[in-house]
């Protein structure tokens, strides 16, 4: 009996140690090689990625005031977007490698995991060039003094190390569709997945919050409450590529009804992108495999 307890205790310690190691963030930012970014190009990456839609200070009209504070109620608790302006409460002092590690790996410069409310599982495919451009653009914006408001989460989600295990289990390389023959479809796949992170809402999740890759863009319950996020797969969405591009520009559906919910923010961003970007996303949506 005593022996069994000793073995059990040893096993628990070993398991704890293994979990501790498995949940650890990568210790140092990966070296980031490449030319300095271009802020004008970064504005496009910023819009396509929807950074401002979550990080802009709520309750005011300037979409480039990135003081954070927007609250997101979820089953895990309430998340609040942090300040990502180039001020001392934001990303002042960050290197481009720090930004790359935050955006692609979900790890802060001081080595803590970010919660996946920050869609790094999608952004992980962002190219070095786009990240460098985004970095240059973010640094060109006005600093904002708003302090970080923190999250209100329920136990055990308060343990950030848990996110490390979640990442190991559920963050996957790439996205569902294989490289297509049409470069416009591939460009659209990059825009829709690596930048616009459409799948974060349009793809259903399991109880652990993992995206169901067998049902990519097949629609999901609305995380913000009532209703459903619509399916974009061709079996469910009867829109033409031109309909989709027009919707992303004007917010008008083929029935000339107006967009609602979070898509309003997405359209405000996409309306400012070149027509070619909207057409590429439309081409990708039309190329999705049916459910």
């Amino acid at each position, binding site marked *: 009996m005593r022996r069994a307890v000793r073995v059990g205790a040893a096993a628990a310690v070993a398991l704890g140690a293994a979990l501790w190691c498995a949940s650890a963030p990568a210790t140092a930012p990966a070296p980031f090689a490449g030319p300095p970014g271009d802020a004008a190009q970064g504005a496009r990456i910023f819009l396509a990625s929807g950074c401002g839609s979550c990080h802009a200070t709520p309750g005011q009209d300037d979409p480039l005031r990135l003081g954070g504070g927007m609250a997101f109620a979820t089953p895990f608790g309430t998340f609040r977007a942090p300040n990502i302006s180039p001020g001392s409460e934001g990303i002042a002092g960050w290197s481009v490698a720090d930004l790359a590690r935050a955006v692609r790996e979900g790890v802060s410069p001081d080595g803590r995991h970010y919660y996946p409310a920050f869609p790094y599982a999608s952004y992980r495919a962002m190219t070095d060039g786009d990240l460098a451009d985004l970095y240059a653009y973010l640094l060109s914006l006005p600093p904002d003094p708003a302090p970080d408001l923190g999250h209100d989460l329920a136990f055990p989600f308060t343990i950030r190390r848990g996110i490390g295990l979640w990442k190991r289990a559920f963050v996957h390389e790439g996205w569902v569709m294989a490289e297509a023959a049409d470069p416009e479809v591939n460009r659209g796949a990059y825009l829709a997945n690596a930048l616009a992170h459409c799948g974060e809402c349009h793809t259903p999740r399991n109880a652990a919050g993992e995206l169901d890759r067998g049902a990519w863009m097949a629609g999901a319950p609305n995380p913000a409450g*009532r209703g459903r996020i619509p399916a974009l797969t061709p079996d469910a969405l009867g829109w033409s590529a031109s309909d989709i591009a027009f919707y992303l*520009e*004007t917010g*008008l559906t083929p029935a*000339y*009804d*107006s967009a*609602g*919910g979070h898509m*309003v923010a997405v359209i405000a961003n996409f309306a400012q992108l070149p027509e070619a970007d909207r057409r590429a996303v439309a081409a990708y949506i039309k190329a999705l495999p049916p459910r």
Partner: protein
Amino acid sequence: MKVSIPAIAALALIAGAATAQEIRPEVKARQGQFQTLSINLGILGGMARGDVAYDAVRAEAAARSIAGVSMVDIAALFPEGTDAMSIEGTRAEPAIWDNLPDVLTKWQAGRAPGGAGEAAAAKGPQDIGAALGGLAGACKACHDAYRTPN
């Protein structure tokens, strides 16, 4: 033919139920108004997208219709008890009745893009496309807060 009294009573009940289900004229009026907007937006949208050839007379008529509808005072079309919780066949959020002044302000905010649409319609498809964004923005402002999700 002999008709029993219970049968008559049953028929009367059914007729009564049918009357109770009838959509109130205010609800019909506001839904017709939104349909009028949508149909005319469709005419402008078709030209902006190049699906339909640009026709200045048709475009201006459509834009004028949108601007005209936006001038209607909608306060009378939202009587108490016509929200989505109280009756079938509407997506009107109960919140409308908690914030009527805001609803009316948002509705009136559609008048400026309505006017801009008229000016754009006379110019050409490119201008119409730009004006549509403004019009859609005015629709969204209200739908976000005051229309139930699909």
